[in-house]
């Protein structure tokens, strides 16, 4: 089964104990499916209901498609500046 790497940062990386996780991709996978898989993986650790997600370094919506070659990232609330 194809998989995709999901990058984690800051509080999310700390909460999940990893800076990335690989999740399997079903057919026609979308961002929401990837998020669901990360949630399952993370067990008791909770991500917010709708975290920001980026695909290939650009903000994405839950309905955007995800394929094997994409770089997915879950973006904690930003605090730059």
């Amino acid at each position: 089964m194809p998989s995709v790497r999901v990058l984690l940062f800051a509080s999310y990386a700390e909460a999940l104990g990893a800076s990335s996780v690989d999740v399997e991709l079903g057919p026609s996978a979308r961002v929401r499916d990837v998020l669901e898989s990360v949630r399952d993986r993370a067990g008791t650790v909770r991500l917010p209901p709708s975290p920001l997600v980026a695909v290939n370094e650009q903000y994405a919506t839950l309905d955007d498609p995800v394929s094997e070659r994409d770089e997915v990232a879950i973006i904690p609330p930003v605090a730059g500046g």
Partner: protein
Amino acid sequence: MRVALVQAPIDVTAMLEEVRDRASGATTLFLGTVRDVNDGRSVEGIDYSAYEGMARRELETIGREAVERFGTEHVVIVHRIGYLALTDISIAIVVSHARRSPAMDAARYVIEEVKKRVPIWKREHYVDGTREWVDPTRGHAEARR
């Protein structure tokens, strides 16, 4: 227009020099600096981290937006990451323009957009030895887990 994500201290003088132009009548500089108190807690320093590729890309987008909206090529945005001590500069934004009003508006636009969109995070280190990730969407620091 130039953006950068750096580890070393930001050279503000060089940035001002970079936007110096015979056609500019106004130059604005905005600096974000590490301060000693946040949410009533004594801060010792802040550890900035970033999703580097995307942060650069977002800074580029914001810089290009500022160029288009305010009509000047002279926009430079530099964000520092890593551990910063009190009074260290985390971000420097410099804009020069023929006229003062768009020069000031452009710098403000950039800092507001950076705070909304650029994937950079900070973990405050407190004088009492604890650390917390800052979550501006909650209006206060997110408890360390």
